[in-house]
């Protein structure tokens, strides 16, 4: 498994912490899946922040703070600086939202913010599209991980553009690639891993399922299955049948 800024993960699942029915269910979802990374955010302190922090800390997982909801470079950079201090980590999931309905990243500002943050010592996990040139620019800006979207955040549509995601995997064979956003089903997550992606980051698919803990278990099993399948070098699909049972030696019975 590839490392993320030198850090090895226990498994290829990064799990969000939002939208669970209760903190207890969130905790169980983490335990059940064994996810080694938790994404978190920063919001205006209203009293709930400290309790949440203690719970996340007690999970004993790596923390990946995000810049969710930021629409400008300035906002994202300031949020990242605050996150580094609060969570005591150089990791930042850089989100720069460009479109309100699709939450599509503004890739131009994303590259600019990635450069500023990298120069300031951050280890940036950019939430990006499946555009190869943007990927290149992010790497030039100092990113060592790319996180293309599968589909819009929270949409549960799976991998919208498999062709582009395959191309991205082929273009950046040595870069840790994470499918971030759009996963709805375990089969989507397995698909991402079968394509050779290094990890999957998801939140809504687990948190909003009728039984989040059961879905967390389903997700990790699918992710591990897809991961093993990729390593096992799957067969190519073909148009015509090919008998799997030997033809030679069949008795003449007609």
């Amino acid at each position, binding site marked *: 498994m590839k490392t993320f800024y030198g850090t090895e993960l226990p498994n290829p699942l990064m799990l969000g912490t939002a939208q669970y029915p209760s903190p207890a269910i969130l905790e169980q979802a983490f335990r059940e899946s064994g996810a080694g990374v938790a994404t978190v955010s920063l*919001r205006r*302190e209203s009293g709930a922040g400290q309790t*949440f922090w203690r719970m996340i800390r007690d999970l004993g997982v790596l923390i990946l703070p995000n810049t969710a909801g930021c629409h400008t470079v300035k906002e994202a950079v300031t949020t990242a600086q605050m996150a580094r201090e609060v969570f005591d980590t150089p990791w930042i999931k850089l989100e720069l939202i460009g479109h309100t309905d699709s939450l599509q990243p503004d890739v131009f500002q994303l590259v600019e913010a990635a450069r500023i943050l990298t120069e300031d010592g951050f280890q940036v996990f950019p939430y990006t599209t499946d555009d190869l040139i943007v990927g290149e620019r992010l790497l030039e800006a100092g990113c060592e991980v790319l996180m293309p979207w599968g589909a819009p955040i929270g949409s549960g549509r799976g991998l919208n553009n498999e062709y582009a995601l395959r191309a991205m995997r082929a273009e950046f064979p040595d870069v840790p690639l994470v499918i971030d956003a759009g996963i709805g089903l375990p089969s989507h997550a397995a698909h991402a891993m079968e394509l050779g992606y290094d990890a999957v980051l998801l939140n*809504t698919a687990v948190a909003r399922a009728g039984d989040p803990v059961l879905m967390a278990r389903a997700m990790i099993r699918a992710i591990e299955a897809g991961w093993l399948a990729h390593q096992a070098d799957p067969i190519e699909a073909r148009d015509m049948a090919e008998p799997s049972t030997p033809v030679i030696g069949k008795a003449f019975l007609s």
Partner: protein
Amino acid sequence: MKIVLNGEALDVRAETLSELLAEREFSGRVATAVNEEFVPSSLRIAHRLSDGDRVEVVAPMQGG
């Protein structure tokens, strides 16, 4: 002094950022920004507030 704290207009006695946090009883893990600029915790004692400053105090929260 009149400031805006997390979007709320307030009249406060505090003259520095650290005094403001104490006055408003913030504790634990928080980060601060004044007028959209990050102010590290080590600089809060020295950071003097001005009338009309916009102060943000943020804390860990759920996220995806």
